[in-house]
């Protein structure tokens, strides 16, 4: 069966609006951060951080889309929505984006697997950093083992999210 999206034909001479081009990625990341508004009263940190996943997907799909400072406003929004101490994702996401920039210059070959590896390291870094920040701001003594399941399925979810991101990206650039 042919993917219905492939039947969409871009019209010649038409361009998507600037808002669609620049706004779509930002809005999807913010919606991902707002996944915590779902009416799930969790007993342990189980939900994957969708904001982080979407940010990583966009960054690895479209390296030229954002400069590294985008981690500051998007991270701030994620902190507001997630219940982490404010400043936590702001700091971690920006450091992560700078780190990805640094790695990207040094890698000669890049394919899907390297992207996944980069994403896995970034996810583990951000979740572990989040635990550390929550601990020093009065969150009590939390062991890293508690977030290990969350790390595992966030890493496993990355390929799915990056595909959905690519799908949205196709819609974004086609008028």
């Amino acid at each position, binding site marked *: 069966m042919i993917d219905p999206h492939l039947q969409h034909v871009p019209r010649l001479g038409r361009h998507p609006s600037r808002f669609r081009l620049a706004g779509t990625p930002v809005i999807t990341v913010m919606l991902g951060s707002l996944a915590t508004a779902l009416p799930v009263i969790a*007993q342990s940190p189980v939900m994957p951080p969708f904001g982080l996943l979407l940010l990583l997907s966009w960054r690895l799909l479209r390296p030229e889309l954002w400069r590294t400072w985008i981690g500051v406003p998007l991270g701030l929004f994620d902190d507001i929505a997630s*219940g982490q101490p*404010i400043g936590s994702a702001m700091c971690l996401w920006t450091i992560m984006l700078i780190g990805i*920039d640094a790695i990207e210059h040094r890698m000669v070959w890049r394919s899907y697997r390297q992207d996944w590896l980069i994403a896995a390291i970034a996810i583990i870094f951000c979740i572990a950093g989040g635990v550390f920040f929550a601990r020093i*701001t009065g969150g009590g003594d939390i062991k890293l083992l508690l977030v290990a399941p969350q790390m595992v399925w966030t890493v496993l979810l990355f390929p799915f999210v990056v595909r959905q991101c690519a799908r949205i990206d196709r819609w974004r650039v086609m008028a």
Partner: protein
Amino acid sequence: MARPPSRRPGHNRKAQYSLFASYVVAMTGAAVGLLLVVVAIFDPTGFAAIRIATAEVTRPASVTLKNMVSGVSSVDEVLASYWHAGSQNVALRRQVENDRNRIIEAKAVAQENLRLKKLLKLVEDDGSELLTARLIASSSTSTRRLARLNAGRWQGVRPGMPVRAPEGLIGRIHTTTPNTAEVLLLTDASNIVPVRRANDSVPAISTGLGDGTLEIRALAAGRNPFKPGDLLVTSGVGGVYQPNIPVAVIVRIAGEIAYGVPLANPSKVDAVVVERSFEEAVTRPEGSATTAPVVPEAAQNAAAP
């Protein structure tokens, strides 16, 4: 696949400066974030005001979704109960036989209590109940265990107020916005509750572990007095929680520490009750909601052994 196009701008001066500036902005932003976290070490609820907008905007969506899913949220429980259906049936039937006698005894005790209370002319109504609301969302991605309550400052909710369900204690109010409030759940690692064993008042302290269980430490030195199956209720020490709210049941013992499971599951309860702080309910029963005693997290942590 070869590597993506380099972001190095070549010899274009303007592009070079622009890239450099973007890194400077990013570094500054990260440093500001770190600074905010450092500030939060000393004042955990300091920047809570920034959260007002998102909390208020997402409230209607969360409430609508909550109304839709409250019926299906226990599907897992229904499926799991089929697993041991046969042996469970026998065990439960035996338990019912045992409980029947207990219920008759309890009825007699209740009647006697009523009679004695009439003799003493005790007044049971302490007016501590403030309002009933629902939990609509939670910090499901974070290690902090915060749930969002569908009532806030405009409804009279203040930080520090205890929150309970009919089954037992849920937690206490952490921060408030005009129409929502964040509840620090019992299972958050920073929530410390003074408790006692229900039948013989052995004092202990309950701390959340962040994974849905509690760590119970007895205050008395020496051998661990708890055994699996013990019921814990609040002791009323500290002035935040009313005495005798059911808290947890002990499930496991490991050396000096006992592990318990909260009696009220925040994801299953339909509605929760916000109460006035115990101290306030006792000392100033009328019109003192504006001066709710806020128990700072640091002070509570310091009280732990």
